[in-house]
């Protein structure tokens, strides 16, 4: 298994380097020179040239790239050209918010999606299955911003059950910073008041973000369960008199959920990219909203760092998924 994990880690490196090259080229080859905007109101061409020199934008592109790769190799992502602060510290403040939101959505999608998919398979072609099909297709098709606004209007504006926006009430001290994940940190410090605040704030954004994932997990599980139920071992178990519940929820599910697990790994990427919109609507202080501001201001170091860090997390999550996959189905590890 160690060899398997190492191999997967090594395979991720060229992919990440490719991501770095691609992002750098996209950001710097397209006409994208922030110098004039940085030089300020009505700056003269000389002032702009001075800014260009100060940031090294006057160097040949290959040289800029080599310098940048050298910095990244030393885990130095440089300073934001706008805020003048190390981009790593700005991202470090925001990343836990995005991770917390993404994992909460993923958890919700899996915990609800897998049982729903299983039930739809067990009662396939029943009214429940038909309703599920409509709901899951709807879940995939619905625009998340529309769903988010409906949630806000109903649960926050009309019923006043949940907070409209943000990650924590303004002016209230957030949980002690241990992992940066408010739900976890408040539990670790046994501050249930803080946990309630954190949970109340995450419900609507996590629900919105999980919608598409929930639908596809449910559909993949349904397909997997249906297929497994045709296998001989199921018929054998039935013949041997095992309880139907036990057959489905233990034997069938374990053999069907492999497809859904792979899906979860892929979903993580989709979730992080959808988080950009969800974070903006719910004013969730994550990297999504940071990336949007950085793109609008051509803050290319911030954009590069966000892309690369999200890329690393995505690669790691997929490695974990592969490991889980291998644990569920030992043939996978052997084939590598």
């Amino acid at each position, binding site marked *: 298994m160690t060899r398997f994990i190492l191999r997967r880690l090594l395979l991720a490196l060229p992919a990440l380097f490719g991501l770095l090259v691609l992002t750098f080229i996209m950001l710097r080859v397209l006409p994208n020179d922030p110098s004039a905007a940085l030089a300020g109101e009505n700056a003269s061409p000389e002032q702009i040239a001075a800014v260009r020199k100060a940031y090294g934008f006057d160097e040949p592109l290959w040289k800029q790239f080599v310098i940048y790769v050298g910095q990244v190799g030393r885990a130095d992502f440089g300073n934001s050209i706008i*805020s003048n602060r190390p981009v790593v510290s700005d991202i470090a403040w925001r990343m836990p918010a995005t991770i917390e939101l993404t994992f909460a959505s993923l958890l919700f999608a899996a915990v609800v999606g897998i049982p729903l998919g299983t039930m739809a398979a067990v009662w396939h072609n029943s009214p429940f299955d038909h309703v599920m099909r409509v709901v899951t297709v709807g879940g995939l098709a619905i625009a998340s911003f529309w769903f988010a606004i409906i949630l806000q209007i109903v649960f926050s504006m009309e019923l006043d059950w949940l907070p409209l*926006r943000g990650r924590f009430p303004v002016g209230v001290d957030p949980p002690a910073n241990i992992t940066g994940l408010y739900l976890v940190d408040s539990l670790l410090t046994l501050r249930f008041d803080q946990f309630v605040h954190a949970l109340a704030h995450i419900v609507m954004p996590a629900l919105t973000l999980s919608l598409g994932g929930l639908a596809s997990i449910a559909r993949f599980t349904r397909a997997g369960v249906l297929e497994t139920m045709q296998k001989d071992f199921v018929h054998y178990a039935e013949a041997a008199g095992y309880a139907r519940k036990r057959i489905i929820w233990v034997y069938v599910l374990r053999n069907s959920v492999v497809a859904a697990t792979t899906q979860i790994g892929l979903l993580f990427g989709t979730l992080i990219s959808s988080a950009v919109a969800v974070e903006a609507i719910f004013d969730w202080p994550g990297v999504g*909203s940071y990336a949007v*501001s950085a793109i609008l201001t051509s803050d290319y170091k911030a954009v590069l760092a966000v892309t690369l860090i999200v890329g690393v997390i995505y690669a790691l999550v997929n490695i974990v998924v592969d490991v889980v996959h291998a644990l569920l189905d030992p043939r996978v590890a052997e084939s590598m």
Partner: protein
Amino acid sequence: MKRRTFLMGTSAAAAAAAFGMPVALAQRKPDELIWADQLPGSLDPHAVFDVPMQGYMVNIYDTLYVYQSNPPKLVPWIATGHTVSEDGLTWTFKLRDGIKFHDGSALTAEDVVWSFQRLLGIKKGAASAFLPVLDPANVTAPDKATVVFKLKHPYVPFLSATPLVAIVNRRVLEPNIKDNDWGTAWLSSNSAGSGPYVLDPATYQPVQQLDMKRFADHFMGWAHNKSPVEIVRRRNILETTTRINALIKGDIDATDSYLPTDQVERVLASKTATVSKDESMRVMVLRMNNKKAPFDNVNYRRALSHAFNYKGFISGVLKDYAVRNAGPIPANLWGAPTDLPPYEYSLDKAKELLAKAKAEGAPVEREIEIHIQQHLAQTTQAAQILQQDLRKIGVTLKIVPNLWPQLVSSTSKPETTPDMWVHWVSTYFVDPENWIGQMYDSQFHGTWKASCWYTNEKVDKLLQEARRLADQEKRKALYEEASRIVVSEAADIWIYNTIELRGLSNRVKGFSFTPIGSGADFRILSLTG
């Protein structure tokens, strides 16, 4: 705590949040204001100068003069007044006594000198307003309460530009200077001011959140405000719908000042909030690159000026929350000729002028481009309205999405400047120089404000003369004459002067709008309830 208690607490909390029991929402504190408007990209007032920075600077820093009320009046602030020499070159400012920085040290003439030298040394932000007329060595402090500026040549708008320069605390900054950076890396997330509020650097997150506390020792005192705001929490809520919902719900006390016009009625209908509607000084312009054919033909430019449906845009899209502006100077500022008729929307006239331009050899069939600012919906709407009407007179307009940094960078040369692009000219300082002076004097070619590449020697002379004369009546006549020429030559298409629409909760009292800082002057605000 036992595992069972722990689990019970967790489940109870989870159940409360998930199954619709109203969660105990944090109560708003009575002396705490939440202001949801854009934040400046960085906090160094000498490195950045834009509209969000004005709203920050006016609270954290003090300046020689400030603008107050609307229309804005220039009033002495840390200065008691000033004198100008006969030749218009030497400006002497006397300072008040007893001004303290946030660290308790005294603000003296030395600090004013150092602040101007720092601005000129960094050469960013508001520096462009001073670089052509002021050398760092020519700012001096003969004594603790006197600052003297010797200009290279007479420049009357100098006084109206002094509110652009924050006075910073040299003693706080100097230990934080690295690699001759004037301490700018440090000041980007810290403060060194004397203003009515102090930044809390611990909770600051760029573009996201910024907290400030009241500075009880501010030199103007607090007698004017019986219940001042103790803590201001500035939050940048990206999504407009969320911002407006938050205001109506009572989560925040103020939105930005550019509410979408279709949301105004909704806010007004709520019992919790209102909208402050203030005529600002911010002109929307469709730029035309006068150096590129067919825009180098005056009749072609006039044709386009007649092809824009001004009323349709202002009434239809903006619900009349804007005032038609005939020329480059905002209609509510001196220097804008009151009798100058704006271009009227007439496709017949446009056709006629187009034919004339064609007869003069202009390539009127060429497809032209207009660059819009992707994230600002109004720029798209204006471009689409123009596109529809131009199609009727046989001109094809292509709409190209773009972003501010790229647009500003493209305007450095006529060849790279788009055929047309859309932007606003906001108030950086209240003087016609901020609009017509910097937009149409050919000496500013290569800057975004002068990106129409208009050249007219007579206009150049009028504007140069206007910068030199001390008498405002004489200057007014010159600006009016220059306006008439620029408008008759249709250098650009001027659309409207902005009415700023800021959502305010009913708790906020004492709001007073000024185009500079858009009313984000927390010193005069108080909260009820």
